[in-house]
């Protein structure tokens, strides 16, 4: 009867106005006829369902009536999966009691139950939907468990608690971990792109072991980080290093997007929150799993460079005299190079690289203790010589029930990672802050640009570390293969995350949880430039100046956290559900760093261990800390689980602000309406679930430097920044300078983001189709802007609360079960997100904010980015490419020279230097000259929409996952094309293959400038390209061995699979990879220069569960 009533209620057959039968059953074992009558009455109350209910009544209530008196009874059964194979290790418990067992190899179980009462068995197993069955006459049960699909009753982790999905009031995206696991990656963020609506995940390039950038619902901040707050097992961290986590350890990833869900993190919630929960042990038999895979990576695409013939032809065009002396000697002619093989440096500098990953975990538990131990080894070589990433990681967590009231647990993660190799998007000659910023100092400049033929003996060119025909003082090109092989560039990191809690449950409804944790990260970067590297060779400027050199830098960050929360949970009258949580937390973050660089090292063989023998060139030692104290509270109230209200409030006090400005207050409110429970929706058969959500809240951002409110005096010896460098020689004696470097701002306060969210969750046809749609509008005010100050203040920048930015957008997620049969199933998940970012206001009435790109070429000093009020935070800015000058633009003088006609504008350089075939820019203001006033917006790096499309197929024992990801409508600035299509006028540099088709007197119908005709070093629309792409990102094909076959080997599950990543990319982008942003910041996205090549990966893997 209980069950019948439950079912009826769940099906929404009658309003819960009627008292529960529990009360009526409480004092009697007998079922009075009166009660039966009562039931019949209420059943009939439900007019349309009356007959059905009556049948149910007969089926479930009556047998119970006649089968009550008995003592103990043995129940046996068998647990099978959907394919009918026995499941070993499934847990079988009597509901409401601690009595339980687990299934054996045959999937069978035996259990003794009291037969006096109505009993239910609960059968659960990881990866399957927990099933409850009611016991009846039968003694033997066959139970089939369905594969787990994320459903409405799944428990989702939210800030400081959990919630059933159906009870959520906020916009929370949860990652389908099963899909994510299909992509073998070294850290979870690499597989996150395209998985969740509104979560933009981008890589700067393909460098192994580098964190991805995650931006949720568009960037709020202009100058500060837009990275979300990470909460790993309850521990909030700004700036988490995702490479220290083993993806196999992650049980769930939830992304809190709207203010209703993030406001509980108050001052740090404005960029969204990513909650990561690691796997815990489960009651039952110890489960041992092994996941391993082995893969090979290969670059997706090669940069096509000129052939030896085209290269020589170009050299002869560029410098006829000197090129002829190099390439046309010993009787050689241009035609001699037609069949020359030359050296393809990419073939030698890039490689097919291996990667492998092995994880072992032991998990299990009793009703008192749950434990999980796991370890991981991951080794990845990069596709560029001598680069890669390794990880050695271990984790354990134990949860212990001390008594009926107390529960405690610890959770520890330790990782040692090693990243090595030249960072391809950084200069090779960076001597701890003394870089030339010369384009030719980048590694890929040499890989692409190093000449294929020397005119003499090419094997000499291949073996010499430096090209004899290059003036090394102005050209930092080096033999890329020798340079790469000799690089010693390591970053070692030790990372410890540890936390523990004690929970005390009292007075039935109260829970007090005291939790504490620490994180410690220790990073050591070592670099050594020996005599065969670009920065250490006596044949290069750096080497000549500084000799063999090296550096070590250490940084330590640590933080501790204490969280104390008191929660109260109660259901009143069966319909008012109240959940209240209040808490107080303290956190402190410490950072320290030190480094030293030494030059003129006498003993090359000692490597970095011999640094002390050299001359100290640079040393730093810094330290800082900040503290945060917070009070938080949240009330969840639901009425009949139909009307859901959430109110939260957090007060954060941060040491980063001056006394009196420290506290920020962050309220939020949300309302959700389970429309699906309303009769008028229930009448529509197609709709199985519908929920409407609305929320508004305020969140903050305190990402300023720890002491931004204070003015600073510093004594910097060798800092290179123009503004802080200090010191002077008096009487040939150095005197340390003490200088004001920062002007403090006592009025600084939190950056505040107000966000409105409107959401709809819809389930159709028995939830075979589920849709989530959200509209949001967020406005960030009091922007913590590292504002550019007028130089006349004497300071470059200072933090100010100035300006505002809005982001509004629409997110749409569609999950469908397309086909579901015994042997075959197909389900899909599709998401798309549109975000519109707009700067509302900048510093004062600043009309624009232009930004340079950090050192990539000292020749390009312009500002290719602009932020304009009313437009996006970042837009490409520069000149409009207007083709090339043609003969008709010139007057030919008697001596044969061409002089630009007076009415034809110049290209920013002197008209007298312009020749036919030179690059031409649009004179936008029509004043006859091209200058800075002719710059305009030339592109938009921010996508119109992003998304992903994942498909899961299952045919018998096979499973197949196909995942697409895209970005649409964003532009990229292809700086590789600037340099390798003629801007680099240095001799003997190879150019892109297409530059062979440049303008020549015989080929005037070209848009590629004549050799040497690049004109001024401007950024122009010529190099802005559409960066949209659709990528077939993952295909994973797996085969699950039949259980019957595994039984003999005492193996529960065994899956072998093969998987490929980055398989096909459809794009118009002409560069190597459209997913690129080597100078990634809110102001400078989408810049492509010397990016580490992205790899296509093919892996073979094995998952075993014992």
């Amino acid at each position, binding site marked *: 009867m209980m069950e019948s009533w439950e079912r009826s209620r769940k099906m929404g057959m009658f309003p819960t106005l009627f008292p529960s039968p529990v009360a009526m059953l409480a004092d009697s074992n007998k079922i009075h006829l009166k009660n039966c009558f009562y039931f019949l009455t209420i059943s009939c109350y439900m007019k349309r369902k009356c007959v059905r209910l009556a049948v149910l009544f007969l089926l479930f209530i009556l047998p119970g009536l006649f089968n009550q008196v008995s003592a103990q009874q043995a129940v046996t059964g068998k647990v099978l999966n959907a394919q009918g194979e026995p499941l070993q290790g499934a847990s079988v418990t009597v509901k409401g009691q601690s009595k339980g067992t687990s299934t054996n190899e045959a999937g069978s179980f035996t259990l003794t139950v009291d037969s006096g009462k109505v009993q239910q068995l609960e059968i659960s197993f990881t990866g399957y939907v927990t099933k409850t069955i009611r016991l009846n006459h039968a003694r033997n049960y066959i139970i089939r468990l369905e594969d787990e699909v994320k459903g409405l009753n799944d428990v989702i982790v939210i800030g400081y608690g959990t919630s059933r999905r159906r009870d959520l009031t906020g916009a929370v995206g949860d990652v389908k971990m099963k899909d994510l696991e299909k992509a073998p990656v070294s850290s979870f963020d690499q597989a996150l792109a395209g998985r969740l609506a509104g979560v933009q995940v981008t890589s700067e390039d393909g460098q192994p072991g580098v964190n991805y950038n995650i931006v949720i619902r568009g960037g709020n901040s202009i100058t500060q980080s837009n990275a979300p707050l990470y909460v790993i097992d309850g521990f909030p961290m700004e700036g988490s290093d995702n490479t220290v986590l083993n993806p196999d350890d992650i049980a769930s990833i939830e992304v809190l997007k709207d203010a209703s869900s993030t406001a509980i993190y108050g001052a740090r919630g404005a960029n969204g929150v990513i909650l990561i929960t690691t796997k815990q042990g489960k009651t039952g038999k110890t489960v041992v799993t092994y996941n391993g895979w082995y893969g090979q990576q290969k670059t997706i695409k090669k940069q096509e460079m000129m052939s030896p013939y085209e290269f020589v032809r170009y050299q002869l065009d560029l410098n006829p005299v000197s090129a002829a002396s190099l390439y046309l000697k010993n009787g050689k002619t241009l035609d001699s190079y037609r069949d020359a093989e030359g050296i393809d440096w990419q073939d030698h500098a890039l490689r097919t690289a291996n990667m492998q990953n092995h994880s072992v975990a032991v998990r299990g538990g009793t009703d008192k203790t749950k434990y999980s131990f796991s370890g991981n080894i991951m080794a990845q070589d990069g596709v560029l010589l001598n680069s890669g990433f390794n990880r050695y990681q271990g984790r354990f967590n134990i949860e212990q029930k001390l008594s009926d009231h107390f529960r405690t647990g610890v959770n520890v993660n330790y990782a040692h990672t090693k990243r090595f190799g030249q960072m391809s998007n950084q200069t090779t000659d960076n001597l701890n802050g003394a870089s030339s910023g010369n384009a030719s100092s980048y590694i890929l400049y040499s890989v692409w640009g190093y000449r294929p033929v020397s005119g003499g003996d090419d094997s000499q060119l291949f073996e010499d570390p430096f090209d004899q025909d290059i003036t090394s003082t102005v050209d930092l090109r080096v033999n890329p293969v020798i340079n790469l092989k000799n690089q010693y560039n390591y970053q070692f990191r030790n990372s410890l995350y540890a936390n523990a809690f004690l929970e005390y449950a009292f007075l039935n409804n109260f829970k007090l949880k005291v939790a504490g944790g620490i994180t410690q990260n220790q990073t050591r970067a070592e670099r050594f430039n020996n005599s065969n590297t670009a920065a250490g060779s006596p044949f290069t400027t750096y080497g000549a100046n500084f000799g063999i050199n090296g550096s070590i830098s250490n940084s330590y960050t640590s933080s501790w956290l204490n969280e104390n929360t008191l929660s109260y949970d109660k259901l009143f009258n069966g319909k008012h559900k109240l959940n209240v949580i209040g808490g107080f937390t303290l956190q402190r973050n410490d950072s320290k760093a030190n480094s030293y660089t030494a030059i003129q090292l006498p003993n090359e063989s000692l490597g970095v261990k011999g640094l002390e023998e050299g001359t100290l*060139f640079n040393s730093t030692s810094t330290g800082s800390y900040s503290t945060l*104290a917070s009070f938080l509270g949240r009330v969840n109230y639901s009425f009949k689980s139909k009307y859901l209200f959430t109110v939260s409030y957090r007060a954060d006090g941060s040491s980063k602000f001056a006394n009196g400005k420290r506290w920020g207050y962050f309220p939020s409110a949300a309302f959700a309406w389970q429309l699906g429970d309303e009769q008028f929706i229930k009448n529509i058969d197609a709709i199985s679930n519908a929920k409407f959500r609305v929320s508004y809240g305020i969140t903050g951002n305190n990402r300023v430097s720890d002491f931004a409110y204070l003015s600073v005096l510093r004594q910097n010896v060798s800092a290179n920044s*123009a503004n802080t460098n*200090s010191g*002077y020689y008096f009487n040939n004696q150095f005197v340390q*300078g003490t200088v004001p470097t920062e002007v403090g701002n006592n009025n600084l306060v939190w950056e505040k983001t107000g966000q409105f969210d409107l959401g709809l969750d819809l389930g159709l046809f028995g939830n075979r189709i589920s849709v989530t749609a959200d509209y949001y509008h967020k406005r960030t005010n009091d922007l913590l802007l590292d504002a550019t100050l007028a130089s006349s203040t*004497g300071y470059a920048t200072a933090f100010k609360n100035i300006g505002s930015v809005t982001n509004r957008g629409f997110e749409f997620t569609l999950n469908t079960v397309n086909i579901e049969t015994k042997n075959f199933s197909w389900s899909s998940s599709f998401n798309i997100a549109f975000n519109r970012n707009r700067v509302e206001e900048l510093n004062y009435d600043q009309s624009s904010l*232009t930004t340079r790109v950090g050192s990539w070429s000292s020749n390009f000093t312009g500002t290719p980015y602009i932020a304009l009020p009313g437009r996006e935070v970042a837009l490409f800015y520069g000149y409009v490419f207007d083709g090339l000058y043609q003969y008709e633009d010139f007057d030919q003088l008697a001596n044969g020279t061409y002089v630009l006609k007076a009415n034809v504008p110049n290209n920013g350089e002197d008209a007298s230097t312009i020749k036919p075939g030179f690059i031409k820019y649009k004179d936008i203001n029509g004043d006859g000259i091209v200058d800075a006033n002719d710059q305009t917006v030339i592109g938009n790096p921010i996508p119109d929409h992003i998304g992903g499309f994942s498909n899961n197929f299952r045919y018998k024992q096979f499973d197949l996952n196909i995942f697409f990801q895209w970005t649409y409508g964003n532009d990229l600035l292809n700086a590789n094309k600037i340099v390798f299509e003629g801007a680099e006028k240095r001799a003997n540099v190879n150019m892109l293959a297409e530059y062979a088709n440049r303008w020549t007197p015989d080929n005037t119908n070209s848009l590629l400038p004549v050799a040497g005709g690049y004109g001024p070093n401007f950024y122009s629309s010529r190099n802005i390209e559409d960066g949209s792409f659709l990528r077939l990102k993952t295909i994973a094909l797996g085969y699950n061995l039949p259980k019957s076959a595994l039984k003999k080997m005492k193996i529960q599950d065994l899956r072998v699979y093969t998987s490929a990543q980055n398989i096909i990319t459809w794009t118009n982008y002409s560069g190597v990879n459209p997913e690129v942003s080597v100078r990634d910041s809110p102001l400078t996205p989408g810049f492509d220069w010397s990016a580490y090549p992205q790899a296509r990966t093919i892996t073979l893997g094995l998952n075993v569960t014992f």
Partner: protein
Amino acid sequence: MKKIVTILILAALTGVSCKKFLDSKPIDFISPVNYYNTEKDLNQALAGMYDRLGDLRVYGRGMHYFMVHSDEFFIKGATSGINGFVFDASNLEIGRHWEAVYTGIERANMLLENIHNAEGNVDEDIINETRGQALFMRAFYHFLLADEFGPIPLKISSTKTPEEDPLPRSPLSEVYAQVVKDMKEAIPLLRNISEYGFNGKISKTAAQGMLARVFLTMAGAPLNDVSKYEEARLYADSVMQSGEHALNPDFKQIFINHVREVYDVKECLWEVEFGGNNQGTIREGGSVGSYNGIYCTNIDTGWCSDLVHATAKLYNAYEEEDLRRDWSIADFRFVASGNTVVRTPWGPTEIYERNNGKWRREYETLLPRNKDFNGTNWPMLRYADVLLMFAEADNYVNGGPSPAAYRALNQVRRRGYGKPVDVADPTVDAPENMSQADFLEYIKNERLRELAFEGLRKHDLIRWGTYVSTMQQQAAIYDATMPTALKAAAVGQASRITARAVVFPIPNSELNVNHNITQNPGW
């Protein structure tokens, strides 16, 4: 229930200690309020203030060539960027120059405002001397900018908060009035250079000499306040009367001394001091000789970029016997041959090919040489300049050259020919009985000869009001006389010096965030 009460009490207690928990103190920097207390503090603050002179966009490099285009040199091959005089308000170098100098002003202001912290701890003479230095430097930095940009924001107090409204431009006369006021206030506080024995700090005569330059500037364009000639004469004269200074008998030795880091406090009143070769933690080297010197591709010999080339006008301004010519304009270059270089003379007709030869890296004493950086000092004010300023001002004040003016001029000339400075020598002395106008013209050329490549020619041409016309003439001359390989770039550079080029544009880095400021006309 008891437990709940306990918890609430505990929570309340923690709340109380919140303030203490959130009171953080910086652990790796100091704050202005607790500094400027000791003599060491003051000296370090002074070092920080002087430091901006050495910035690469100020006297570290910029003022050697790319900020001071004139008729004495052109920059080889430069058709773009500031080297080619192709730039606008967005130019990085101009922006950084402006920024560096204002940073220097801020450092001086901070020192002036906080120097009272030292009262009682530090000897009053030292406080006064420090105050004098800070006042002078604040004035000098303003003078430098006003000379280059015209009316500029006058900044005589430190920035207290980033939320302050940015400063507007002050009229040029106000800026100069403050410069004069600060310098005059500084002079009595300063010490004599003989007490220092080195050139790096501002001495009494250095301030007087520089004030003479300020007055001479005010007397010329654009202020044209001719009453200032009198004061210029007066201050130059007080330097001459001080007994602190005399001409070095050997012209080339002045510059060898700079390169060798040897002080000559008689000849030089003030130098920007550079030190070291940037090969260690201290990087205060400059680039005197490595970007404006004799082309050389070998680092061990003394690398130098092939940028600054003498003009025929400069070359021809010297007489054959004038020893200054072949020192100021190198008659050779270094030709690389494998790993060595060969000193190779120029032919007699190869004039435009020649580089600035004043500071020759081969004399550097600190080894190993760095490609770019060395310890060579940069002369800010030489006694010869004071003599010529005196002569120029005197010529105006007296309606023609007085014997004193002749004496000053001829001292400079005789030294240039290697003659004793105080012995009249008709073979080298300036023609007698020149008219006021002729004498002025003579002085102008003498300044060209004596002070070539010292970053003063552009300044002089501007105050004489002939910068634009001179450069346009030069463009025509280059076009007519220069070898083809060099011509285009040089003609371009000179021809771009049009009316607007008398001042630089206010950099965009200022304009974009300073709503109180306006751009210079034509930019």
